């Protein structure tokens, strides 16, 4: 099988794979991780809020999202939202939601749910005395969260957040169902065009594997370095 393995097809496709495909994959990963972290933190704060109904809404959202297959939502969002948008705005045609925008929103919605659970654990890991000391100094709830609780929670949770981001990096390959040329999509396009399925899919797998492995190793190094001193 490897006798007629054509390395040259990979070499010729490299610029396209990395400058188009990998760039899209990394952009989507970075933006989704950032958005997921921001909204995830908000959802975590809602869940821990003393207003019961806020916590219930956030809890429902997290359970709801986690009960749906990601691929399904990517599909659903891409094909149905233009019609819902049309119905909502009363436009004459389905509104256009670009493939990138629609996949980004989907991933942020998903990651927000996952990150929120991580942040919730992180916030709960901070002893009650810390926010009490912050309040006793006159800091408001928001200030105490911003300057005292969240920085510690982030630091405690950083390895887990980064590991979840590595999972997200792999999950972004699911956008290929929308025929978006992310890294996997680009590799698949070349594979179909040149009839070199084995080479391209093996190469794609290798790239995902190497990047994820290196990143995991980096996270482990970081973990031992930043372990908070108490």
């Amino acid at each position, binding site marked *: 099988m490897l006798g007629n393995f054509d390395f040259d097809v990979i070499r010729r496709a490299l610029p396209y794979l990395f400058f188009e495909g990998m760039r899209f994959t990394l952009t989507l990963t970075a933006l989704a991780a950032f958005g997921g972290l921001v909204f995830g933190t908000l959802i975590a704060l809602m869940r821990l809020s003393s207003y019961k109904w806020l916590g219930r809404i956030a809890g429902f959202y997290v359970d709801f999202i986690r009960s749906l297959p990601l691929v399904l939502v990517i599909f659903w969002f891409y094909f149905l939202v233009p019609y819902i948008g049309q119905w909502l705005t009363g436009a004459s045609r389905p509104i256009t939601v670009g493939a990138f925008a629609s996949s980004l929103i989907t991933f942020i919605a998903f990651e927000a749910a996952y990150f929120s659970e991580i942040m919730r654990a992180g916030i709960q890991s901070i*002893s009650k*005395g*810390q926010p*009490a*000391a*912050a*309040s*006793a*100094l*006159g*800091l*408001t709830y928001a*200030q105490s969260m911003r*300057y*005292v609780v969240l*920085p*510690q929670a982030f*630091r405690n949770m950083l390895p887990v957040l980064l590991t979840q981001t590595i999972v997200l990096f792999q999950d972004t390959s699911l956008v290929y169902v929308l025929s978006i040329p992310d890294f996997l999509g680009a590799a698949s396009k070349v594979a179909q065009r040149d009839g070199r399925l084995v080479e391209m899919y093996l190469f794609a797998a290798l790239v995902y594997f190497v990047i994820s492995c290196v990143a995991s190793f980096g996270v482990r190094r970081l973990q031992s370095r930043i372990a*908070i*001193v*108490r």
Partner: protein
Amino acid sequence: MIEINHVNKWYGPTFQVLKDCTTSVAKGEVVVVCGPSGSGKSTLIKCVNALEPIQGGDITLDGVKVNDPKTDLPKLRSRVGMVFQHFELFPHLRIIDNLCLAQEKVLGRKHSDAMAKGMKLLERVGLKDHAKKYPAELSGGQQQRVAIARALAMDPIAMLFDEPTSALDPEMISEVLDVMVDLAREGMTMMVVTHEMGFANKVADRVIFMDRGEIVEDAKKADFFGTPRSDRAQKFLSKILQH
């Protein structure tokens, strides 16, 4: 300065932690609160700056009603210093930043002013050389002195101490008590929950004895150590002073 009037507090529907507590701390007065564990003394002091809500009665602090929903609690709390049993320094901030945070974010002081004030107070508690360190690099006694300096940086009108030496190794207790004695002698209004009867004997004006959520004894220091009126306070004192 601090007025506590008929305060009642429950944990849950049935367990009453504070029963009709009434007392006061005048300006410049040092009041020590003692009593067996679970007697509600820590809870009482936490009610003074509303870290714990109360269900009945009134607490006023420098004329401001603490348990009024309209009271600006952050502002009120910024005016009274509090020192906790477990120090509660912020572990992710350097010592000097622990002292500056609230000065800048709550009082709106300039960074340079906050730093100057912070360094002055660190010098006062004998920890100037440790300003750039993180809390975990300091001993318990040093951390508690930083916590006192952090509270003083806000120029408080009164200081609340919640068992400030209970979590310390014996040889570190005196370095913290020394700072507190100095503070008392300078005329700071203080409410101190502690078992350190030596401290009480040295600087307290009044001693309050609590048991099962009630203020059993509230007397001038001389009366308290001389002839406590209640049996419970007598038993407590004899046990604690035995060794």
